[in-house]
């Protein structure tokens, strides 16, 4: 099985409040592989992820995205599970709304959520009890809310999944579900990236990059 690069970062440097956080980071995220990004707190792991997602601009360097055939493309839809959810705890939306909005985030009709099969499938795969899918997220437990966000990450079948310390808010059952989903997604040829302190907790990794200001390849399959 070939593993073409879906993301190539080259010479990325980023400063936050005039403090250099990333210096000359170069790495590749490849299809069909689990890539772990490890490093100490404050080493720039989450900053790197935010630059990849387009939340932050880089001072210098380039990020290029490719489809599985190797054609360069604009930044594609990326499934993103944040370390700390920015979903307002009292948001008046249900799990169905959250996943629906992630699939149809643009302007236009309809404004009402339709119970689409892909929305249900994403919630089922994330292991959310179907009876909870229409309940406002404010009434869900922390673990259930994390499953909603996981469903949102999977929805629409993006080629690249980025999970930022995904094990922090999940219980043992949720972690098992997550490991199974990662294995399934990699099997389907997706690139799965997780930022973690412990790649073994996620069931191991094919490629491990250590980011501590700059990036170094620690282990590769």
């Amino acid at each position: 099985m070939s593993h073409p690069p879906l993301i190539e970062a080259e010479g990325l440097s980023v400063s936050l409040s005039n403090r250099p956080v990333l210096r000359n980071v170069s790495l590749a995220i490849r299809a069909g592989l689990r890539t772990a990004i490890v490093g100490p707190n404050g080493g720039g792991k989450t900053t790197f992820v935010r630059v990849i997602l387009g939340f932050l601009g880089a001072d210098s360097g380039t990020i290029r995205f490719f489809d599985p055939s190797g054609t360069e493309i604009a930044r594609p839809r990326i499934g993103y599970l944040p370390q700390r959810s920015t979903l307002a705890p009292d948001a008046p939306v249900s799990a169905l709304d959250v996943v629906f909005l992630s699939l149809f985030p643009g302007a236009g009709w309809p404004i009402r959520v339709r119970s689409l099969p892909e929305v249900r499938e994403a919630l089922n795969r994330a292991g959310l009890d179907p009876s909870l899918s229409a309940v406002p997220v404010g009434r869900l437990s922390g673990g259930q809310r994390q499953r909603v966000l996981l469903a949102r990450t999977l929805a629409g079948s993006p080629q690249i999944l980025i999970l930022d310390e995904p094990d922090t808010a999940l219980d043992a059952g949720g972690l098992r579900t997550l490991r199974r989903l990662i294995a399934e997604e990699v099997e389907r040829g997706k690139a799965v990236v997780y930022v973690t302190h412990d790649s073994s907790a996620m069931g191991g990794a094919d490629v491990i990059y250590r980011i501590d200001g700059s990036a170094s390849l620690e282990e590769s399959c």
Partner: protein
Amino acid sequence: MIEFFSYPFFQRALLAGILVAILCGALSFFVLLRRLALVASGIAHAAFGGVTVAVLFGLPPLAGGVAAALAVAGATSRSSRLGKAVSEDAAVGVFTVAAMAAGVVALGFIRSNVDLFGLMFGNILTVGAADVFLLGGVAALVLGALVFYFRPLLFASIDEDGAQACGVDIHRMRLLALSLLGLTVVVALKVAGILLVSALLVLPGAAARPLFAHWPGLLTGSVVLSVVMVVGGLLFSVLLNIPPGAAIILLGTLLFVLAVGFDRLRPRSA
């Protein structure tokens, strides 16, 4: 009482009040979600500065109000992109008092009569047909934009990172929300005044929140409660011979207190 409905001035007041109520009720939903109560009030006060400066220079007051409201909305939106250096509430605080101060200075030089009391508290019973048409046009524009951009606006209002990861331009959505607020504030000033517009952008959403946990109910409830506040307040004002603006705000406050009380008393479900 009933004969008031046959008077053209009361019919215009009722129609204008309902239009303002629908507009402010719908926007109140987003003010609540985005925690923009202070910003909404700030934009309303900034419009005051714009109106008086425009009058001083012989320009159309409405244009001055729109310019000031949109300038404060844009500057507030821009400042929020600067991160922790300038927080949104600090930015709106600075721009609001600056616009108010400019308005007060301009007021000192104005030789003609400016209805300052009307600007502050509104004069819904003196609304003309042209005001109603203008209000109707702006209401159609703002409500159309809210419907068309509803999904990205809602997404960016409840989860900025999630929305951005899915391709929503959250900065554009913030600017859109603030611009719609600015436009609404200015056209509603003549009808409702600064204080009543500020109240109508906050009270309906705040009163609906304890009653509805899901957004369709919350949005509908906010609009309905806003209409109840305005129509009920107008009727109380003619019944009790009290200023309509004050009657509307007091009724809104009463509805808010009742909604909070109802929420506390009702049994909790899982």
